[in-house]
């Protein structure tokens, strides 16, 4: 962890330059430019809103579109960071074969690039909040911590996946499938409160219910999305009961994933 931070500092200019390159490249020669970055969450929000009009999802006193958009914001950030991160090493094969710098720069760069897109989504969220006349409370100060946590989760997947992907390209193929499944296992389309209601309050799965709920919250995104909605829209502090299983998992996986990456790094140039 300390090493990551140190490298991040030592190579900050390189990371900045690579991030800038990624952004410039993506939107050069495209007419709509940055608008493409937010198209994905907006489209998903519209689709979910449409679906919701058939099935009916209880969202309490918060309008569904803004609730799901607030869920999509960290979700899309996580999903894109992870999948870009996994591909980041192999797509920079030319550099890896020619020049040495710590290879974790690539997954980190991929993630930082996504922060820019996240920032644009924030602008849209703000606009929606103004439209729905919602005021952020002091609890909104939690947002940076929630985003930071999301970054750690994404890096945990990126490091491991990127290293595997150098040896077996199956990783890059499998990840989108797994992630799209994970989206339905995360409170994106529906709020966490609904899961809580079913399992904890109604005990819908009998005496398995409490364990199932813990299992559900083992997915760090469950805690992240819920916390994000609470601090931004509901004016509540994060629900730590929903956060901690995922947080523990992340704290275990991230160092392992980083160590795995650093070990595999030695052979990147030979194998890639």
């Amino acid at each position, binding site marked *: 962890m300390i090493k990551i931070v140190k490298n991040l500092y030592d190579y900050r200019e390189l990371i*900045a330059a690579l991030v800038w390159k990624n952004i410039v490249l993506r939107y050069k020669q495209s007419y709509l430019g940055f608008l493409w970055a937010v198209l994905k969450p907006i489209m998903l929000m519209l689709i979910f809103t449409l679906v919701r009009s058939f099935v009916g999802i209880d969202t309490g006193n918060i309008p569904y579109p803004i609730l799901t958009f607030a869920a999509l914001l960290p979700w899309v950030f996580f999903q894109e960071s992870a999948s870009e991160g996994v591909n980041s090493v192999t797509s920079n094969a*030319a550099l890896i*074969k*020619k020049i040495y710098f710590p290879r974790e720069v690539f997954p980190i760069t991929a993630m930082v690039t996504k922060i820019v897109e996240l920032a644009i989504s924030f602008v849209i969220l703000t606009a929606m909040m103004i439209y729905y006349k919602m005021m952020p409370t002091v609890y909104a100060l939690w947002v940076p911590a929630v985003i930071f946590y999301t970054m750690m989760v994404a890096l945990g997947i990126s490091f491991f996946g990127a290293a595997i992907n150098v040896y077996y390209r199956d990783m890059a193929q499998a990840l989108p499938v797994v992630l799209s499944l994970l989206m339905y296992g995360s409170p994106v389309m529906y709020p966490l409160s609904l899961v809580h209601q079913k399992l904890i309050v109604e005990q819908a799965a009998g005496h398995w219910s409490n364990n199932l709920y813990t299992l559900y919250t083992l997915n760090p995104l469950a805690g992240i999305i819920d916390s994000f909605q609470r601090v931004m829209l509901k004016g509540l502090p994060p629900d730590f009961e929903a956060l901690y299983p995922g947080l523990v998992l992340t704290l275990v996986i991230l160092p392992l994933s980083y160590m795995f990456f650093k070990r595999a790094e030695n052979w990147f*140039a030979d194998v890639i």
Partner: protein
Amino acid sequence: MPIIEVNHVTKEYQLGHISSLKENVVNSYRRLVGKPIHKRENFKALDDISFSIEQGEVVGIIGHNGAGKSTLLKHLANISKPTKGSVIVRGSVAPLIEVGAGVNPELTGRENIYLNGAILGIPKKIIQQKMDEIIEFSELEQFIDTPVKRYSSGMTVKLGFSIATSLDADILIVDEVLAVGDLAFQRKCFDRMEDMIKRQGKTVLLVSHNIRQIQRLCNRVILLDHGRINMQGEPQAVCDSFYEQNDKKIKANIDHTKTHTIASGEVELVELYFMDHAKRKVDSLSYNENCSIHFKINVLEELEDVTFGFGFHTTDFLYLTTHNSEEQLNINRLPAGDHELVCKVKRLPLLPGIYSIRFGITAGQAARDVFYGDSLKHFQVVGDIPITIRDGFFALNAHWMEKNINITETAIISTVVV
């Protein structure tokens, strides 16, 4: 303390593809039940290499293709890790392993300068300071804000070289980059390299197939062969040894493949041999001795207005001489049959070394080629050379003298002082 230490470095690569999932499963099963596993063949790219380089040394690494030169550089640049042994580098390294590795085609020249600077670890401030200098050196002022994808390949390489050499590192690792751009730009690159070496006292590692360049720039040369250090030391000696090896290889190739010649079918070269001053058939010639070169040809169809020509060249095809028979031999008609041509050379001026010979015949009013061949025979020039002659290919019949005999050495020094 040496700035670079390489201790018993061995690098093995596995031949063939990365093992598939099935192979992995089969192998782990075999390991479990204690059967021998299928191992893929290993290839030793580097085999127990040890050497050290002191600060300020300029070391050339030469060798045939696949000798392990680039692999060695990759280890020094920390891109690859050795299978066995260790590499210790004390100082910052600027790897110029293939110039323009980080050049992105979508970005403009200027953007690429920033990006590559960051990749090579140059702080942004320094890049900004050096921006004008880099652009000027690259000769791309006009195109610097155009995306690199619209550059010619020469322009891209120029840009890459300009960025890479603006780097301020202790150790420079250069892999075949001096052969970039047109001749004028190559000259500039070469000058810049020399400046870094001679004036800035940088430690440089150079890999090149251009042995002359190596010989000129380096103060030590390492000759690699199949992953081992074949020879190292003084550039002249090592390069000569490499030339000899090369020569053997070329000779062997020529024995296998005869077709180094273009012939119209009217003439065949039957034999080519040398005779020394005592009229003995010889394989090698002596420096500063008379000799003669004999060409036996078989004319199949009668030729008119024939001119012969021959020349010496180095094994890497630097043409040193040409001598044709135009004004010395007037043959209006050359009937079919065997003929022998002799060219006498007085006091052969070629310095000791390995050379090759080429020979050509033209015929007719329009001087069309009826026969031409390069590298027809490789030969060695032997002999002792006086101390006045050091490098090169030819001895010049020249003499040093001082024009004003009244000025002695001490007098010159005193005028300088005044």
